[in-house]
């Protein structure tokens, strides 16, 4: 770390001061920082400061075989790694003209929605902690662990699954697995009233989040906001429904929206999505036993696999918003170019800077967590 990076950007007047909010701070998600300029406790300017988690994924991927990259892609975003696998695999499948078997598509939906549930539980926990409520944090992390147990059984990995591969998925469900998923969903649903009482309707949280970090729908559209943060401004846009992939067009689910556009509304949208994801997984559990077939399409020898030249822009709806991968092949054994567009690249930079301006210092962490930003998506 060089000292010059931590000098004040401007020489402030005597009644203003600068504060480095992060990169190691309980109010920041991941290793990320905000340089905050304050007048009293009011934020005059906030400047995002990234780069602490830059691992050069896009460069690394150009140097590895198409199949080797599967070990890299989920590592970009720790809380919600599954959509990364899916977006990359989808892009490769489109370049190769691979048809993913129907059963594999249902299994992918199962994984995506369980990952969304786990990610939202993690976010609720972290968000509660920003208001000094630590019980929901312990609950959220512990309940996420129950979902991770399912991932461990299905994929062998708790956090990084490497379950999607181009052409399908690696494994089918083990014996009795669907029953255990159903029990877990029942358990998680039974916990929701407890979460409501402890966190979502708690006056501490409501008072601290209502009217904080308010984003209008017009602002959200201008700033490229997607996912629950956009839906909290009243626009029911969801890639799963509006640019459908897998078998989402055969599933019955609602797109929850709120209209206030503030930290409270954003959290309520996620709370409602948790319930919708449980609803989707239940439909998968009902349909999956009657869907026969292979779980992956045949692919060439993956160690000598030249993907046809072309480019594809794959989009999925992650728990944080629109996640896109632009993948270019020149017909070689390695990707010529991969570009990752994580939803947080908007939420954690321009949106965060905009919302923090004029906010009080104690609300900065609240705004950050309500946006559910994942800084590794910014750094890549």
């Amino acid at each position: 770390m060089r000292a010059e990076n931590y000098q004040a950007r401007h020489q402030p007047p005597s009644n203003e001061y600068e504060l480095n909010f992060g990169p190691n701070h309980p109010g920041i998600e991941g290793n990320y920082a905000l340089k905050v300029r304050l007048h009293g406790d009011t934020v005059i300017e906030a400047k995002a400061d990234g780069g602490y988690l830059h691992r050069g994924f896009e460069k690394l991927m150009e140097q590895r075989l198409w199949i080797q990259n599967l070990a890299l892609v989920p590592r970009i975003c720790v809380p919600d790694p599954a959509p990364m696998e899916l977006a990359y695999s989808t892009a490769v499948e489109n370049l190769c003209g691979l048809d993913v078997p129907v059963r594999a598509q249902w299994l992918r939906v199962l994984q995506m929605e369980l990952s969304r549930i786990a990610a939202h539980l993690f976010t609720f926990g972290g968000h509660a902690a920003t208001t000094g409520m630590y019980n929901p944090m312990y609950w959220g992390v512990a309940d996420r662990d129950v979902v991770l147990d399912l991932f461990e059984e299905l994929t062998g990995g708790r956090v990084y699954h490497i379950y999607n591969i181009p052409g399908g998925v690696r494994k089918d469900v083990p014996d009795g697995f669907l029953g255990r998923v159903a029990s877990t969903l029942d358990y998680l649903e039974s916990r929701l009233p407890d979460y409501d009482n402890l966190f979502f309707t708690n006056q501490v949280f409501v008072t601290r989040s209502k009217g904080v970090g308010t984003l209008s729908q017009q602002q959200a559209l201008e700033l490229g906001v997607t996912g629950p943060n956009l839906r909290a401004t009243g626009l029911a846009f969801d890639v799963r429904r509006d640019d459908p992939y897998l078998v989402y067009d055969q599933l019955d689910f609602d797109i929850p929206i709120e209209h206030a556009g503030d930290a409270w509304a954003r959290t309520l949208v996620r709370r409602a999505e948790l319930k919708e994801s449980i609803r989707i997984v239940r439909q998968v559990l009902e349909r999956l036993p009657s869907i026969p077939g292979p779980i992956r399409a045949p692919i060439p020898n993956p160690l000598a696999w030249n993907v046809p030249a072309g480019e594809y822009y794959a989009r999925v709806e992650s728990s944080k918003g629109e996640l896109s991968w632009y993948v270019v092949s020149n017909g070689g054994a390695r990707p010529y170019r991969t570009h990752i567009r994580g939803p947080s690249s908007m939420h954690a930079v321009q949106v965060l800077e905009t919302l923090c301006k004029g906010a009080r210092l104690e609300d900065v962490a609240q705004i950050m967590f309500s946006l559910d930003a994942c800084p590794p998506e910014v750094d890549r």
Partner: protein
Amino acid sequence: MSNEISTELVCPDISQWLCHLLREVDGVTHNNRFDRRQRLDVASDALPALLTLLQGKGSFVHLSAISCVDWIKENEFELVYHVWSYEMKVMVSAHIRIPREPGRYLSVYDIYKPAGFFERDIFEMYGVYFEGSPWMEKFILTEWDGPPPMRKEFDSESWVGDHFDWQDYHPDWLKDIEAQGGGIAIRPEEQRFSRKAKDEC
């Protein structure tokens, strides 16, 4: 743009509608890949007008991303602007090519605010300068003094070999295993950038 924005599909024949709209801009070739993905190959000087048209008349209010591809053999950068219409439910990718040298182009920040992030990213990683962009400065690579690392001519492995000393990992416990015929997969003398190999060079 208004609060009454609808996500209902307003035009079923997207390709035809888009072709009609694009008659207003010269230098655009339309390639219909499938309904929700449309590719446009655009002359570089026509792009700002095209994006203004798409954003204004075409309802493409969401700039999803700007991607840069380094075509080193052609000595060109390809810039791809992915824009999405909430009403048409279409992703249009507008492709332009610019010369690698001097590697300068116009910012579209005035049309799409998210462009500020992507242009800064491309500036850092490829060295393409966007005139009029508000943040032509470092963001991720604040402590990087080397060339733009995503350029194809930048070999990260060679750079590491040139700038860091590699150390042979040869502890006593490993020597015992090696004496019995075992050991690590790549022996120190076979490692590409081992200290020994460098000294021999």
